[in-house]
């Protein structure tokens, strides 16, 4: 494998990891409106992700940083081309991030409500924008010979990409619900499981619809069918099994399965994209491949050495954190929120 391919894989892994980890954080954020009945519920829900959501968000920051360093052209084309969606994404992440910190600082109902809305909105938009972005990436965008993208509104926002966005929102919510049933106790635990069963059909429908649309709107299947078809079949099988797991209250397995589905769907975008990083809808010759977008070999080698040394350390303390906070959040303990 070439270093450029390794870094494409690594960035893919970072986005996949982000969707897996921050996916349930977003889901928990959404649940503060859909699932919570009162302020105590909300506090418990936020407590489940309190110690870890910030570190989970770093996966995105690292992915984008790695993109800048390893594929400057990808980074430049993507971020300047997706100007407006990126603004929405960043504003949502800003609103969400400060709200966790602000919400309990003043004992006023209005104050708390304001920041609760901010958490909710801030948790819905990021997965939506990411779904929108990933879907339009594999559909193709107006990119010219100078690698610049001149996208109009409907190049980015159209039936296919909106379904992609909604699929990510629904999957994140479902993933969040299985996480909550694993991490809380009492009524929340039961309600989260029931809510997951309620959303099961809608989410499944969206995933199915999205896969069908992918066949019609993109070249993904004609190019990568032999990998994508078995992948989506596996997603289907797992999704079927999820119903049984939810019914039989297998919380750990349910969470694992919603996580794997998110991982596989996110990974499918990168599989569909390879060996391109950007697909041009104007001319196939304007597609930007990883080999064109990539940094110099020296730069990649340095980063590979640092990454190989440091990633195990980072993963080590990440796992340790989850171990420290392995217990369910119950009403008996002191809530930080």
């Amino acid at each position: 494998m070439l270093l450029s391919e390794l870094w494409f894989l690594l960035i893919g892994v970072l986005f996949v990891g982000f969707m897996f980890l921050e996916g349930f954080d977003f889901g928990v954020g959404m649940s503060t409106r859909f699932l919570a009945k009162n302020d105590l519920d909300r506090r418990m829900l936020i407590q489940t992700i309190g110690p870890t959501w910030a570190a989970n968000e770093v996966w995105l920051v690292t992915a984008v940083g790695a993109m800048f360093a390893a594929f400057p052209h990808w980074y430049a084309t993507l971020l300047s081309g997706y100007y407006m969606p990126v603004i929405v994404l960043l504003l949502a992440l800003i609103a969400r991030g400060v709200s966790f910190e602000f919400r309990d600082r003043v004992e006023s109902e209005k104050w708390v409500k304001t920041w609760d809305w901010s958490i909710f909105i801030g948790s819905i938009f990021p997965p939506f924008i990411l779904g929108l972005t990933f879907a339009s990436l594999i559909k193709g965008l107006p990119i010219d010979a100078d690698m610049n993208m001149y996208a109009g509104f409907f190049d980015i926002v159209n039936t296919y990409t909106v379904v992609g966005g909604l699929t990510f929102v629904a999957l994140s919510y479902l993933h969040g619900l299985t996480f909550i049933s694993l991490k809380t106790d009492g009524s929340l635990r039961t309600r989260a499981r029931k809510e997951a069963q309620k959303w099961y059909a809608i989410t499944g429908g969206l995933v199915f619809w999205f896969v069908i649309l992918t066949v019609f709107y993109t070249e993904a299947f004609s190019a990568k069918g032999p990998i994508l078809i078995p992948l989506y079949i596996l997603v289907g099988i797992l999704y079927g099994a999820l119903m049984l797991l939810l019914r039989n209250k297998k919380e750990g397995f349910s969470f694992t399965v919603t996580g794997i589905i998110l991982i596989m769907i996110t990974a499918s975008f990168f599989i569909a994209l390879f060996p391109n990083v950007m697909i041009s809808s104007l001319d196939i010759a304007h597609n930007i491949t990883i080999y064109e977008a990539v940094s110099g070999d020296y730069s990649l080698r340095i980063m590979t050495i640092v990454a190989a040394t440091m990633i195990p350390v980072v993963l080590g303390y990440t796992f340790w954190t989850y171990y420290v906070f392995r217990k369910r959040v119950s009403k008996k303990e002191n809530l930080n929120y």
Partner: protein
Amino acid sequence: MDALMLARIQFASTTLFHFIFVPLSIGLALLIAIMQTMYVFKKDEIYLKMTKFWSIFFLINFAIGVVTGIFQEFQFGMNWSTYSRFVGDIFGAPLALEALLAFFLEATFIGLWIFGRDKLPEKVHLACIWLVSIGTMLSAFWIMAANSFMHNPVGFVLQNGRAEMNDFLALLKNEKLWVAFPHTVLGSFATGAFFVIGVSAWYIYKKRDVDFFKRSINIALVVGLLSGLGIAFTGHAQATYLMHAQPMKMAAAEGLWEDSGDPAAWTLVTSIDVENKTSSNRIDIPYLLSYLAYGKFSGKVEGMNTLQEKYVLKYGDGNYVPPVKTTFWSFRIMAGTGGVLIVLSAIGLFLSFRKKLETSTKYLKFMVPVIFLPFIGNSFGWIMSEIGRQPWVVNGLMKTADAVSPNVSAGKVLFSLITFSTIYLILGLVMVYLFVRVIKQGPHEKVKEDVSTSDPFETGEMQNATK
């Protein structure tokens, strides 16, 4: 206004806003780590209370610092895509490494620190805050490594139409990095210290929790004085660095059009006439510029006119003089605040040593508005450094005007400028509101009511759930 101008305004405003929070985070993290260390080793509850009280400010501030930092990482690609393509190979690396080596550390251990108080052994919990503190400094290191490349590009070759890295160690050993990083971090320590000094002074003045705040102020005064001295020392190193690496910035910072005499005098104030390229009504301090520039009392300094001619020969036609007035005055404001901070912390320590702090009401009152002084120094330090770099985005390699995204319209930049300014303004106001509230409440821990025990409906639900 065109997209370039708007993108520049956006970069300047978002960076300066972000840099209100970063130094305070770095400074407070260190002070809190020191306080908690004193608690763990002295076993005096008051230090635990101190840790908790000051950490409220730290956490609110840290949250805003983090979220405004995310935009910084995306902004290069959004507004400066040509720049990103040109330098991504070498400039992107420190940013990626910052995320991997610093952000993960900070974000993970701050979670462990906040939520792990009852779950971790005391010393492990203490290690968490130290790791957060180290994380904030590491973060600064990588950002300064990236920024230093813009001022003093090293470790690269020009090939394939861009700057490609060919020597990573050179990037880490960049002379600019090793004068700018300590200067910035010490400035941050001072920012945290003077925040604690100012707030403590207010309480001591009001005679509230005097013992608590006398101990806080003493720790902060020591940190304040040491970092103040360090700032002056590293500031001087910056000046000598500028002399050989960015002489145009130095000349602009001095309002020096023609070459100076030998020895060169330092200009305290002058009125600068950019159109006629003259500076008149100068108040000069003899020998000082030679000393600043070379560390000795002789040597002349080249003026902007000479340098402009040299640059035209080297880089072709163009104006290579940065905005002179801004550079000149920012430098003086920055250096002035630094000097004042040293004097004030020395006075404070002296008063404390003589046990006169409590009764020195004038000093205590004066230290409250001084809270803002380091922020002013930090901001103008950046303005001087970055404005003085113009017209270059990467010194000698790429001009700012050539760095902008070609496919982003002025309307889009304006839209994002407005939305981000609005959100940032709200964040700023919320922070001030919360800080004032916390200060009014004082260091007495508020106990959150446990609503769960008084809700019979909830208890019923609990039984339901366990069936």
